[in-house]
C-alpha cells in the first residue's frame, strides 16, 4: 500500500474520531481540500502522522478549537469581489429598502471582514438603523476574532481598493483606526450585528432573512451537503429574498437550486422563487 492510500485511511479515521468524540461531522466535506487541511494541521501541530494528530485530538479536549479552526481555515477579505458588493449596493439594497425591518444572515463569516463590509454598505445606504445582521460560523475562534474586528494593517490597501471598486463614496479609513501594524474596525459598525455559532452541517434555520450571504463556504462541501444547506437557506428566506454565493460556486448539482432564480447569475446573486410547487401527495 502506498502513502496516499495509507493517508486516506488515516483521514477517514480522523474524521470518524472527531465526530464520535466531539460531534463535529466533516464526513461530507469535499475530500481533496479536507485532506489538505488535515495534513496541514498535523504539520502545524508537529505530528508525524495524521494518526498522531487523531491521538492528540482524542485525548486533549482543549485542542478542539484549534482543530476546528485548522479544518475550516477562516480566510476572508473586505469587499472581496467588489462587483458583487457594488451590485448589493446598487441593485439589492434599494429593493430591501421597502421592508420596515431588514434581517441579514451571513453564514460562514470567518473573521468578520464581510460582516463589516455589509455594515458599511448599509450605513452608507441609510438602512443600517433598521437592519439586524446575524453573523454565524462553525469556528468559535473565528467568531471571537470577528467580534474584535482587528486585522493586519497590510491588508488595508487592497481592501480600500476593493471598497472603491464596490462603489464606496468615502474612504475606507473612515471606518477604522490604525495603530502599530493593526487596524481596528470602528465598534459602531458592530451595533446591529449578532455573532453566533451555527453549524451548517447539523443546524437548521437560524432566522427569517431577507438576504443571506454564504460565500465560499459551500465550495468545501460535497454535493449532498451543499444541497442540504441550500434547503436550509430556502426555508430561511422570505419570499423573493436574496442569496449571495461565492463567485465561482456552481449550483449545477444541487436539486434545491430549483427554488432559486438568478438575479445576477454572473455575480451569483439569486432570489427565492415563488412557492416551490409541491407534487401531489
Amino acid at each position, binding site marked *: 500500500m*502506498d502513502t*496516499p492510500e495509507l493517508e486516506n485511511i488515516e483521514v477517514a479515521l480522523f474524521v470518524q474520531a472527531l465526530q464520535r468524540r466531539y460531534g463535529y461531522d466533516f464526513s461530507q466535506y*469535499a*475530500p*481533496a*481540500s479536507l485532506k*489538505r*487541511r488535515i495534513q496541514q494541521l498535523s504539520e502545524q501541530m508537529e505530528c508525524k502522522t495524521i494518526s498522531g494528530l487523531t491521538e492528540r485530538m482524542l485525548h486533549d479536549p482543549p485542542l478542539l478549537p484549534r482543530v476546528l479552526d485548522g479544518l475550516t*481555515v477562516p*480566510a476572508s477579505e473586505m469587499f472581496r469581489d467588489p462587483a458583487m458588493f457594488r451590485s448589493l449596493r446598487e441593485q439589492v439594497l434599494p429593493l430591501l429598502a421597502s421592508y420596515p425591518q431588514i434581517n441579514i444572515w451571513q453564514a460562514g463569516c470567518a473573521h468578520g471582514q464581510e460582516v463589516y463590509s455589509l455594515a458599511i454598505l448599509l450605513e452608507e445606504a441609510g438602512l443600517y438603523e433598521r437592519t439586524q445582521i446575524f453573523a454565524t460560523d462553525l469556528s468559535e475562534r473565528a467568531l471571537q476574532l470577528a467580534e474584535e474586528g482587528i486585522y493586519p494593517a497590510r491588508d488595508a490597501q487592497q481592501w480600500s481598493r476593493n471598497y472603491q471598486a464596490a462603489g464606496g463614496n468615502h474612504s475606507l479609513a473612515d471606518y477604522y483606526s490604525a495603530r502599530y501594524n493593526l487596524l481596528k474596525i470602528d465598534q459602531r459598525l458592530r451595533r446591529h450585528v449578532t455573532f453566533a455559532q451555527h453549524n451548517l452541517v447539523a443546524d437548521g434555520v437560524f432566522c427569517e432573512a431577507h438576504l443571506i450571504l454564504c460565500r*465560499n463556504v459551500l*465550495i*468545501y462541501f460535497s*454535493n449532498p451537503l451543499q444541497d442540504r444547506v441550500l434547503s436550509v437557506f430556502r426555508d430561511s428566506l422570505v419570499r423573493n429574498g436574496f442569496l449571495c454565493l*461565492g463567485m*465561482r*460556486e*456552481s449550483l*449545477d*448539482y444541487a436539486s434545491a437550486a430549483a427554488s432559486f432564480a438568478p438575479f445576477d447569475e454572473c455575480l451569483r446573486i439569486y432570489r427565492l422563487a415563488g412557492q416551490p410547487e409541491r407534487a401531489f401527495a
Partner: protein
Amino acid sequence: MNTPKAIVIGCSAGGVEALKVIVGGFSTRLQQAVLVCCHSSSETMDLLCEVLNRVSSLPVMEAQERHPVQAGTVYLAPSGYHLLVEADWHFALSIDPRVNYVRPSIDVMFYSAAEVWREKLIGVVLTGGNADGASGLQRIRSLGGTAIVQSPTSAEIPTMPQAALDTAGADHCVDLSDIAPLINRLCLA
C-alpha cells in the same frame, strides 16, 4: 502500457506565450484532460481562454467546481482559487490561503492530480519566476507519473523550471518547441 489519462501544466511569468506554443501544438486526437494553472494578476481567465481557444484544436475552458473532468479538453484554474481534483474525477475549488505566495498554486493542483491519476499523469513545469510546482512535480514522480520540465535555457524566466529540476528532477527536460510533440508521442503511443 500506461497511457496517460491527464496532463497538468504549471506556469507563471512568460506563461501565456509558452502555453500558446504547447496548446497550439497538441494533436487533435489527444484524449487526455489537460489542466493548466497559470499565475496571473488578472481577475478572470476569460482572456487567456480566448487566446488559447484561437490556437487550440481542443476546447479550452475555465474549470468549474463540481463538474466532471472531461477527456480531450483543456481546463484553466480560475484566478483566485486553488484547483483540485477529487478521486471521482470532478473538479473542486478552494479559497484557502495562498501557497508559495500564489492562488491558484501549481503545487496544490499537482498534489491532488498526482493522487488521482498516479502513473497515468504527466506533469509539466514551464517558465516562471518562483518555485511553485517544484514540490508538486516531485509528488507526481514519486507516485509514478511522468515529469516534463521546460529547459531553463528556452524559458523566458528560468527560475521555475530550474527549481523543479533541482527539487524533483525530470523524465524529460526539453525546449519549449519540443514539449507538445513529446506529449503527443507519450499520449498517442
